[in-house]
């Protein structure tokens, strides 16, 4: 049986759940982290679970906010489960904003508006997510200036969109390009201010970053690279009417989107005994400094992150893995958070992006990368020059099989072997032209060698490639 990608779950002794007294577990935040924690606690136990959110009763996919605005989905289509799921699994959903926490008495107090009795807990999981960054720009609190993180943010953007003539987006990350696509879907002209000389160039290598620049521009977005926001100018009603850029240009706009990253949403806990740096500090078991209190997802900051990982990783998949991990610990089966290989994905207008493993932007050590690109499609494989072992995959407009890329990296497979087996990672729909074939030809040309690509593609080639890598990944995890 294959393991699952992304997170290595340790072999653990089965814990006898009867030894743990019945308890009430409160989870603040019903994003993917909090919900995953609740699901996995329920899988293992009969404890009372309360999933608290002020944002929305039913957990939904935050990453799908853009599709609601674009009219692809309704808000309810983004809900992770149907309402009956929570009843059947006895996950109590509570819509209220937590105001303060009495860690001593283990009581949650709610915002006065919510008219909600204080709630006691035996164990607490904090999963309050992020907030959009604001860097003290003049005018950043004007009406019509908003980030995009929550359902409320989306509603606010929707309200601003009626009759909107021009929008300005500040910050060249993933949310920025999503927001540009949103306005584009309604034919609202957009100016996209990116501080860096090329889009997301601290994460994307040069060629890929350039490809995204072109994709953004080809959709009619006014992409201004190397340009910063100086100030947001108000009108008489206290709404934004224009921005001034670092180039001195004044751009009229009825909306300013702030998408220059996020930071942990922990301000309401600042004056508490909880140790907080940028986020809530947690150890490798996701425990905070206070007993029975855990933090997961975007709001958690690992005091001692694993090698090659950042202390805060505000990513969907990280939240999901932390949620699963913390559930074991909360249920008495202390489990270390051991994210394995880094992976992520996104979509820039029509170009899909997937990354597996380590893909640096600059190369000065033993690593180097092989790159092959066509129009709107490219593949980069990062490997060690000396040993030829692969360490990372970076795909644009090409779909790769997660397990295959992960297995190659974990098995320290030489790039020549990866090239031979490349079709095993083929995950594009059927009948797509084989990008992989051209890619191997290109590799042969620049290396002056003649690697033969195994022609078979699809699931069977994947299963045989996995088999050929050896048995270490096929051990049963039960």
């Amino acid at each position, binding site marked *: 049986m294959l393991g699952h990608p992304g997170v290595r779950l340790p072999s653990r002794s089965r814990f006898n759940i009867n030894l743990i007294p019945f308890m009430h577990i409160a989870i603040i935040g019903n994003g993917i982290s909090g919900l995953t924690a609740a699901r996995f606690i329920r899988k293992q136990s009969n404890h009372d679970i309360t999933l608290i959110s002020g944002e929305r009763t039913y957990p939904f996919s935050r990453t799908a906010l853009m599709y609601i605005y674009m009219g692809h989905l309704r808000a309810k289509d983004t809900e992770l489960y149907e309402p009956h799921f929570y009843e059947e699994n006895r996950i109590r959903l509570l819509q209220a904003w937590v105001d303060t926490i009495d860690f001593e008495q283990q009581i949650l107090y709610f915002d006065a508006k919510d008219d909600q009795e204080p709630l006691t807990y035996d164990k607490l999981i904090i999963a309050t997510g992020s907030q959009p960054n604001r860097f003290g720009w003049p005018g950043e609190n004007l009406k019509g200036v908003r980030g995009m993180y929550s*359902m409320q943010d989306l509603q606010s953007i929707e309200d601003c969109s009626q009759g909107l003539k021009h929008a300005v987006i500040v910050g060249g990350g993933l949310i920025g390009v999503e927001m540009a696509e949103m306005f584009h879907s309604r034919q609202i002209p957009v100016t996209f201010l990116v501080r860096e000389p090329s889009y997301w160039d601290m994460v994307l290598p040069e060629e890929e970053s350039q490809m995204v620049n072109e994709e953004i521009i080809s959709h009619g977005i006014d992409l201004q690279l190397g340009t910063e926001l100086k100030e947001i100018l108000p009108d008489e009603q206290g709404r934004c009417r224009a921005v001034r850029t670092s180039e001195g240009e004044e751009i009229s706009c009825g909306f300013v989107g702030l998408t220059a990253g996020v930071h942990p949403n922990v301000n309401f806990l600042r004056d508490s005994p909880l140790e907080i740096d940028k986020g809530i500090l947690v150890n490798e078991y996701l425990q905070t400094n206070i007993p029975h209190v855990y933090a997961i997802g975007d709001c958690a900051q690992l005091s001692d992150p694993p090698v090659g990982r950042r202390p805060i990783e505000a990513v969907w998949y990280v939240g999901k893995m932390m949620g699963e991990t913390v559930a074991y610990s909360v249920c008495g089966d202390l489990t270390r958070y051991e994210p394995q290989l880094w992976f992520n994905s996104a979509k820039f207008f029509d170009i899909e992006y997937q990354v597996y493993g380590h893909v640096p932007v600059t190369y000065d050590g033993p690593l180097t990368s092989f790159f092959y690109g066509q129009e709107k499609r490219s593949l980069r494989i990062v490997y060690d020059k000396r040993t030829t072992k692969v360490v990372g995959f970076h795909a644009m407009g090409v779909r790769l099989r997660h397990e295959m890329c*992960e297995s190659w990296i974990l098995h320290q497979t030489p790039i020549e072997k990866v090239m031979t087996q490349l079709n095993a990672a083929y995950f594009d729909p059927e009948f797509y032209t084989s990008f992989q074939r051209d890619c191997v030809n290109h590799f042969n040309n620049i290396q002056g060698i003649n690697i033969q690509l195994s022609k078979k593609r699809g*699931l069977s080639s994947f299963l045989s490639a996995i088999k050929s890598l050896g048995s270490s990944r096929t051990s049963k995890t039960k």
Partner: protein
Amino acid sequence: MDSNLSITGPAASTLSFWEKLGLGLAAIATLYLFSFMWVGSIISNFGDISLLILLYAMATASYIYGAYIGKSAGIKNDQNYFRSLTSRGALAWALGIFLTGFYVLLYWYPSTLGLVKNGPNTGIIAVFDPLSRFLKGQPASQWFMYGTLYTVAILFMGVKFMYKYRHNSYHLIRTTSVMFFQLAFAFLIPEILQRLNQPYFDFKMIWPLDYYAFFDWRIEELTSSGQLGIFMLVWSVALILIVTPILTYFFGKRWYCSWVCGCGGLAETAGDPFRHLSDKSLRAWQIERWMIHAVLFIVTAMTIAVLHSYLYDSSDPIFNTTSLSILFSVILGGIVAWIYIDKERFKSLDPIAKKVGLVLCSVLILLMWEAQFTGRYNLLFFPAHQIRSWYGFLIGATFSGVIGVGFYPLMGNRVWCRFGCPMAAILGIQQKFFSKFRITTNGNQCISCGNCSTYCEMGIDVKWYAQRGQDIVRASCVGCGICSAVCPRGVLRLENGPDTSQKATEIRSLQIEPSGVKLDV
């Protein structure tokens, strides 16, 4: 804050001029067509039908120009939920009522459309006479008119669909296939056969979707039409007993439902703008499972009853009611026995469904033998021709036509395929238990956005599986491939894999511990 915050779109739609022109031209063409109900032919001979098709072609071209040309190839679902026509608004209701009304006239009041028996047609149907005379040397029937419009819809909307998904080879090839099968197999070949004085025969229609395949009149017609007729009869049997299981084993039911079938063809092309309207709830799935298998049982019982009464007076040593009873006892009994013996294969089968199947099949077998020994003529107590006409009215016409297509703008484009089609039921059982086909979930890349479930025309909650990292093996999946296309993270892929026995297990799943608590519905 309101817990069910509903984000709504702009009141004013942002359709481009060319898109509006396209929709307007389509409306004008349709008005032009229906004006013949009141006024006679405007242009003689091929004039009217040429103008009609030209108007529809211009409408399609104009819409394609406005919606897709000059725009980057990619997913084009913008504003689906803001537009009246695609979000159950007033236009959708108007279209639904119009289509429903058209089907009512077509099935039960063809004379209002201009059908004249033993005389020259009038009204709408007369418009199709020249084409009909050209193809088969006879005046048009209401079915010729319907077939022509149906084919035009699949061809033109098929071209539109191909522009919409022009970046996706799977959709280009699949759509070419449904367009070809509709034009050649469903439209041209049967008409030409008739011109050659051969029986009307659609070589891709399979029992039980083709529920009259083994009716007495059909068998009489084919057996009296020489070698070609006999071939057609043998072909009909081979399709369901040999061709279907083999192709479904290798490719899943998609080889038929979204590559060949005419109902599927219309759903995939003309119905595509409505695919997101299918109900994704667990409740809808429960209704669907019972309904579609009930239709399958009814069509089977009806076919046996019709054959029973057809063979009742037969003195042929082979083709008589005894062999009929033996044949169907073996088939039905064999299926039930298989389900009970091969427990591993059928482990995911609902135990209640298993018992109901056992009881129904047993009752049918007992009835056959009881009738055999008592010499009862009406196998199911009612005359076979009566059961047949009820089925034709309720399932053949009302369900597959009036509701199946009439409700496109309200319940999505696969209402019939999902809730009613007995062919889809058989293929679904084969797909679930005897096929290499599945949709693979790519590791942990799912972000639960809901595009896959929303755009699944069969109402499968694809996300339910994808977010758990589990492969999707569902009887109802027609393999249209849209879930894979709309996925923004490259998570889904339609595959025919070698590990048939493992496909439904959670080999690619995130979860590692079998749970003691029932979590998964």
